[in-house]
């Protein structure tokens, strides 16, 4: 059984009297111990997806329809106490910016211990021991000392580690990591990623990694979901997606990487940029930037089709597969 299944999730934003879709018809599943990455450009709706899973979409956003099931328990309709049960204990979340994620006026220790104590009845002392142990496990030197320090006394990398330790305290089933390293240095980024990876492997936790860095994704995730303008456009095993992207957007994204061009040569750019919420085009949202766009793309939204091990939403791919089938059919005849 799937640990988490998201089905036909729609999230809308109420902005200036308009009801704008930020997530459209998103579906995916996550199994125990699985590591999935969500990639896409800024504004694609990755964070919103992450927040929806713990039902933390802020006003003016709201979950319009669809379901998010954690082992058959529907999250979208849970009451607040039930949600608080799930959050932290079953699903934990790491945010992008370690500088802003820890409460500046509470010590690290308080913020760690409260997380344990609000889910299990255990004495402060025991909780402290667990916390220190976790701090140790995320490779923080002299955790006893850190325990009584305030967040501002720690560097960014250290803070992100504290956050990871917080998240690990209750051994959740799922960790959602929303761009956990964007604000950090390359060397530290590598360490944190490695840390996350090790932890997930060792404790068989499921990881939902939100990122726009394909390099990071390729290192961590088994499966990748590519999002564009609020929709999933392609989904499949990471290796497959990197080596054989199907959707023109995924292709463009990969080709634009400097690694894909010869040094000193021009890069393969995608024209234009992702439209903001209120300017999403009709049909396939990618069509204004797509080199292969047809009239059909402009008018209709492609549905998902399987292409090899991946799932893609693109008419071109659909056509190609159909053609291939056609060819097969013809050949068979």
């Amino acid at each position: 059984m799937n640990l988490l299944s998201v089905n036909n999730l729609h999230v809308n934003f109420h902005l200036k009297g308009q009801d704008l879709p930020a997530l459209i018809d998103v579906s995916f599943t996550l199994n125990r111990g699985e590591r999935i990455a969500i990639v896409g450009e800024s504004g694609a709706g990755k964070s919103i997806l992450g927040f929806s899973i713990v039902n933390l979409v802020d006003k003016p956003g709201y979950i319009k329809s669809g379901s998010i099931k954690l082992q058959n328990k529907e999250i979208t309709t849970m009451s607040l106490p039930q949600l608080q049960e799930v959050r932290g204990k079953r699903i934990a979340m790491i945010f992008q910016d370690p500088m802003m994620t820890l409460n500046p006026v509470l010590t690290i220790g308080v913020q760690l211990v409260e997380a344990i104590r609000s889910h299990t009845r255990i004495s402060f002392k025991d909780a402290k021991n667990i916390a220190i142990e976790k701090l140790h496990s995320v490779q923080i030197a002299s955790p006893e000392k850190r325990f009584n320090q305030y967040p501002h006394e720690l560097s960014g990398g250290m803070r992100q580690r504290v956050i990871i330790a917080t998240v690990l305290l209750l051994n959740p089933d799922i960790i959602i990591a929303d761009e956990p390293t964007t604000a950090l240095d390359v060397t530290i980024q590598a360490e944190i990623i490695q840390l996350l990876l090790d932890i997930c492997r060792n404790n068989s936790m499921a990881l939902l990694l939100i990122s726009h860095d394909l390099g990071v994704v390729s290192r961590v995730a088994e499966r990748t979901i590519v999002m564009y303008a609020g929709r999933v456009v392609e989904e499949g095993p990471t290796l497959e997606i990197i080596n054989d992207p199907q959707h023109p957007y995924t292709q463009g994204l990969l080709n634009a990487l400097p690694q894909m061009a010869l040094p000193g040569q021009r890069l393969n750019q995608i024209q234009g940029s992702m439209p903001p919420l209120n300017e999403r085009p009709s049909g396939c949202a990618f069509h204004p930037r797509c080199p292969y766009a047809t009239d059909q793309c402009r008018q209709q939204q492609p549905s998902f089709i399987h292409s090899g091990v991946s799932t893609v939403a693109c008419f071109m791919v659909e056509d190609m597969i159909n053609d291939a089938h056609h060819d097969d059919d013809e050949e068979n005849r």
Partner: protein
Amino acid sequence: MLVFLLRRLVQAIFVMIIISAISFAIQNKLGDPVQQHISMTVSPTERAQLRQELGLNDSIVVQYWRFAKKAIHGDLGTSYYYKEPVLDVIFKKLPATVELAFCAIIIVIGIATPCGILAAIKPRNIVSRLVVALSTMGLSIPIFIVAIFLVYVFSIKLHLAPSFGRGQTTNVFGLWDSGLFSKDGLRHLILPSITLAFALMPIFVRLIRAEMMEVLQSDYIRFAWSKGLPTRRIYFIHALKNTMLPVITVGGIQAGTLVAYTILTESIFQWPGMGFLFMDAVSRVDTPLIAAYLIVVGGIFVITNTFVDLIYGLVNPTVKLANHGL
């Protein structure tokens, strides 16, 4: 810390010097003190003589110099009316004002905090909308109208609370005449403290609401939610503590407003505190007392601000006192 206090001391002295100079510059212009203390039938020559005795005929500079020399030894002069050293007079009235302000602050904190929080966490709730509307209204109604209205309803019509004065006081530890320990004293406190609280309440309700709303948007509150903490803990530990930071600073700034409004409140309710003393001194042209009041109030401002900074430093771990303030 020491450096911080030292700095504040320098600042206090600086402020007091300026204030004493200003109060000195104006004191001649507030009226003729001699006039206030004699009958109208006293002849002009005799008045001139009295002025001479008081040293009022010397130039301002000479007078200021004389004043400053004494002030260094802690002697700010003698009140014309009370015939006692001005500082003694002021410190005798201090408890009344402190108690009034204290009660008002308690009321403000006690009401503004829950109201502000409620209005922030449940912005669409009917009660919280009412709170917001009332606080805007409160901001718009001058305090003197409020005071008279309260007196009319609660003392004249309903006879629930006395309309003036401080009532019975009991002496505590031999140095403080307190009205807080008798029923009568407390009854007398009701209307003035409500009035005074009314002057500050809207500011704080609105401030706490706005701050709380902003804090609730922040990442660390989201993270707290995602940790699955109980609602109470998120609102009252995580959010409130951060909300209080700006509230504390603004609270410090409001000290001036508080003092100004104690003047109004005390005059309306005949509350025998420093504000009343000040207005009385002005109408009696008790110039040494006026000057001393201003100086003491200046000192109080610096002290409250220092306290506020200290508290701020305690609440906010990111502040190092030595880098804060002058």
